[in-house]
């Protein structure tokens, strides 16, 4: 309905947009304040710092052992992306193509880890990983991060599988392709856009996954977001600017992948769309 009524209607529309504008203004200002602070020399009581420098980055690089943290982050994220892809895509295929007894229960099983917040199941999970001697290691962090990502891949991939005509697969079967060949030669190429989208989203979500990593990581298995938390938590020990320098490094890592992901997916897919 584009035709709107009277002054009151116009005022209402104006108010809605003003609200959105105000939100975005504050959001961007918040991000900008981190970026400006990370490049600024010490500043008090002014809008902008008196001068600019990159020395906070050098300081953060050494003090927070950023090279180690970045390496761990990429190892964890890489492993999570690959494993959740290998487990999630075939499962999504089975969920989309077969009607088996208990399918609704299995679907619920996949939905739960996405709906229950990580801090709720993270504490018992960390306890179990401690018992198994995996807590504090990079393996524990990877396992914990798989809990939400495998269901996420499945839920994103099911509609992608469903839109492939089953007759294409039937044709491949008729011409003699086995299950493995069917996957490698027919399904993976056809599903490539969906797989790419799902895995990029997993990547972005895993970089930003704080709670599960925080609860299971040890000193040598921290990812960037957890290191950032500790830095902010212990603020006062170090200058705020070097914390912000690290925050900018974190933002760049996340947003670069987000921008890449957004070329392939709709922004709305970042949040789970649960249908009940």
């Amino acid at each position, binding site marked *: *309905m*584009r*035709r709107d*009524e009277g002054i009151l209607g116009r005022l209402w529309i104006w108010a809605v947009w003003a609200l959105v504008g105000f939100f975005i203004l504050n959001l961007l200002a918040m991000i900008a304040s981190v970026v400006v602070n990370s490049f600024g020399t010490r500043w008090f009581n002014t809008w902008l710092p008196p001068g600019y420098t990159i020395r906070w980055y050098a300081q953060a690089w050494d003090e927070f052992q950023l090279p180690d943290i970045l390496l761990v982050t990429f190892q964890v994220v890489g492993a999570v992306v690959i494993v959740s892809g290998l487990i999630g895509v075939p499962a999504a295929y089975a969920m989309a193509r077969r009607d088996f007894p208990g399918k609704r229960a299995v679907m619920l099983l996949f939905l739960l880890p996405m709906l229950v917040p990580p801090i709720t199941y993270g504490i018992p999970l960390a306890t179990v990983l401690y018992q198994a001697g995996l807590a504090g290691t990079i393996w524990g962090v990877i396992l914990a991060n798989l809990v939400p990502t495998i269901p996420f891949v499945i839920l994103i991939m099911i509609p992608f599988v469903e839109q492939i005509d089953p007759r294409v697969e039937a044709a491949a079967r008729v011409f003699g392709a086995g299950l493995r060949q069917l996957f490698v030669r027919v399904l993976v190429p056809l599903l490539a856009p969906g797989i790419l989208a799902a895995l990029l989203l997993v990547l972005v979500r895993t970089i930003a996954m704080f709670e599960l990593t925080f609860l299971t990581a040890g000193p040598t298995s921290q990812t960037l977001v957890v290191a950032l938390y500790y830095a902010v938590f212990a603020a006062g020990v170090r200058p705020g600017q070097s914390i912000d320098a690290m925050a900018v490094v974190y933002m760049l890592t996340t947003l670069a992948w987000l921008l890449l992901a957004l070329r392939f997916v709709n922004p709305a897919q970042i949040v789970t769309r649960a249908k009940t």
Partner: protein
Amino acid sequence: MAIAAPDFRELRLDGVSRDFGVLNALRDVTLTVGRGEFIALLGPSGCGKSTALNCLAGLLPLTSGSIWLDDRRIDQLGPEARGFGMVFQNYALFPHMSVRRNVAFGLEMQGRPKAEIARRVDEAIQLVRLTAQADKLPGQISGGQQQRVAIARAIVVEPPLVLMDEPLSNLDAKLRLEMRTEIRRIHTMLGCSTIYVTHDQDEALSLADRIVVLRDGLVRQVGTPEELYARPSQPDVAEFMGYRNLLSTRAEAAGAGLVVRVSGAALAGTPVGEVWPGPAIVAIRPEDLTPSPDAPIAVTVDAAEYRGRDFYGLAHTGDGTELFFRSETRVVAGEALRLGASAARVLVYPA
């Protein structure tokens, strides 16, 4: 029946235009619709017929021009202030309301007393023969029944004008014929004006008092179904009305003795508009082009199909011109025939 259209004399569109890009635009449409008239807006997809309907409904603002209901200018009003009824292509029934609540919606918006609403809703539901389904939700009834609800919902407010946007296009062939009769019955009973958008000429011919043919946003012809069927004013209208044989040709002589050449053969024709000797376009319906031993055009049959009673076929002349024709006797591919048509059914347009 108590439901009846309010009193008004005419609805007038004056130079109505709507620009958005090339497709679906509407250019300078002027039309007068009298009370009780059934008007079909006919044209291929993208011709602007749905745009015209949405402009009338108030769902799209005009770029220029005006719309008048008698002496009242209504094009500035929003859709909710015009008081027209509309039947949408996908029916647009409110899925969360029962049939009865759907039909009552417009009356509730007018703030009518409860008793009056109940009485009029019952009448409207009875009129479309849905009394047994009145308390069901739209998702629980069939497509044809949903269609009836949509009609009841549009007419219960007794609108001066009912707008219908391809209302039958989602129904199967049998139901479509049934609903066609139903729509005409309800229209006649109420005495409201109806504007009916369709791309199906059969539908337009059988329903409308007058047909408006639109193409590329322009009104190409306005006329009764008989006029449009027998005398399309333009070659493109002729093509749309089923004149499948549309050939570039030359006219020899003008006026009453008009003769055109089709692959060298001379064919007597009727001019539509100012036709002078020289290039011209000839339009003939397949059913008017029939074989006989002394007909002028020699052809070879390419294919023929039996359509019950008659055979319809495709043939070509010596120079490769393709012609669609009708035959009362069996013809087979490869057979040589001579085709001809009466002069009244050979329409000749200036090129």
